[in-house]
């Protein structure tokens, strides 16, 4: 496979983790501008695990996902009382706090004679596990795709067991949901933990592919993009945020000649889509229609 295509697909895959993470919270009724923080925790955590502590890769990924879940839940617990703009800005504040803290976070150890580890604003390089073990880019793409598929399958399973519907109820109307017997706080924190885990997993995968991460990469813009993908692609299904990523990065690639104007085109496209379909392309009513049709 063309190495360029592999690189593009890998990017799409990695961003999809971030987009799914934001989407899950949107379903639960919260806008988070801060999922990039858990992506960062996964990237730094996973990177430190392999590069500094010499952990095996799968364990490092698990560690990154776990960090994302833990921190996500920790932030969501006090923030759950908030909603709307307050929640959005609180998550933005936490994410920026994370980024600003990473700018002064130094943790370097001697590994095989080299000083390895995060060096504040200078970044964190030499996350070389993938290259040292000689994994080909194509294989890594398969890994990204496989894990992404696993996440989507987990979400589909949750849908099957009515878990997703309950989360949607909490998202649409927490008071009414409470009246149906749902423990709203538990759902909000649970969704935040799951979203944090997904973002953390993506972050760990990202760090090992890029081999170098720095705090500036986990910016507000990244976070707002993540939310936008779900809103554009559609809130009705987990495939929505992925569609959003495809549209953005796919557009970038197909408009190579117009690369300089990509954001202008993408921005205009998004604004138009949202006028026609305020809940995204694959919105709830479309998904309901498809389901009804499939039932026949």
């Amino acid at each position: 496979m063309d190495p360029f295509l592999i690189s593009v697909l890998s990017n799409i895959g990695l961003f999809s983790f971030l987009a799914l993470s934001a989407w899950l919270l949107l379903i639960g009724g919260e806008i988070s501008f801060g999922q990039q923080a858990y992506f960062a925790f996964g990237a730094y955590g996973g990177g430190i695990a392999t590069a500094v502590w010499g952990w095996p890769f799968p364990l490092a990924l698990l560690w990154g996902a776990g960090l994302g879940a833990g921190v996500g839940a920790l932030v969501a617990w006090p923030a759950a009382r908030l909603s709307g703009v307050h929640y959005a800005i609180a998550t933005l504040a936490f994410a920026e706090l994370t980024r600003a803290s990473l700018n002064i976070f130094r943790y370097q150890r001697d590994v095989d004679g080299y000083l390895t580890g995060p060096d504040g604003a200078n970044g964190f390089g030499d996350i070389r596990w993938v290259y040292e073990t000689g994994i080909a880019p194509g294989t890594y793409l398969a890994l990204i795709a496989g894990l992404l598929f696993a996440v989507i399958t987990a979400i589909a399973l949750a849908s099957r067991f009515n878990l997703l519907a309950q989360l949607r109820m909490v998202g649409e109307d927490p008071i009414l949901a409470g009246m149906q017997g749902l423990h709203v706080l538990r759902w909000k924190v649970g969704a935040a933990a799951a979203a944090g885990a997904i973002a953390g997993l993506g972050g760990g995968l990202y760090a090992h592919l890029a081999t170098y991460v720095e705090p500036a990469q986990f910016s507000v813009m990244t976070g707002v993009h993540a939310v936008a993908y779900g809103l554009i692609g559609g809130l009705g299904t987990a495939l929505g945020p992925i569609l959003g990523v495809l549209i953005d990065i796919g557009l970038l690639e197909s408009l190579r000649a117009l690369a300089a104007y990509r954001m202008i085109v993408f921005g205009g496209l998004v604004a138009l889509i949202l006028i026609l379909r305020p809940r995204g392309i694959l919105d709830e009513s479309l998904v309901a229609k498809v389901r009804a049709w499939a039932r026949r």
Partner: protein
Amino acid sequence: MLKIRDVQTSYGKIAALKGVSLDIEDGGLTSLLGPNGAGKTTLIWTIAGILKAQAGSMKINGEDILGLKAHQIVSKGIVTVPENRLVFPEMSVTDNLIAGAFSRHRDKGGIESDLEDVLTRFPRLRERADQLAGTLSGGEQQMLAVGRALMARPKILLMDEPSTGLAPIIVEEIFEIIGRLRDEGRTIFLVEQNAHMALKYADRFFLLEQGKVTFSGTPGEVDEKEVLERAYLGARKAG
């Protein structure tokens, strides 16, 4: 039987309920009447666990329920049909109904048969089973809300102003449904502005004025005209 004694609920500094006491007896329809702003919705939300009372007690069959959260109240069999936020608009009619039964989510067979019962009881909902609830008319949404509450197999049904915003002919339809539920022996606590309709179906009623219960009785034994006056206009001050 739900016993409410001296319940006080405030919004910040504003006292909405200033010591409400009433009994909701098993079986039959108990109605709470009163003018706007008397605190009727506040009382429903306090019982439902959405608002926290600052004082007083609420006991169902001797068990204390004051201070329990909304989902815990549901598990005690007290189910609310709220005013205004009737349905989950982005979910289908069927999904809305199933949502009502989440507190009994393990009882799959029971939920299926209850769903059948509700759709039979409300043929219009069966017609629109796959439609998004947000596209239903006001009366249909109210029916859906009642149906959803029934899915929880409630011991007590709390209904907050089901006639709100509905055309008179639809209001009659809704009350017929409520009447049928009462005839089946269910316990219903109905809060209503439309005192005339409420009195037609109530077995007993209470009058809430400015955060306190000022009057109680059964429709047969009181002068309906006087009750209606006070329910709509509030008690006239002497002098």
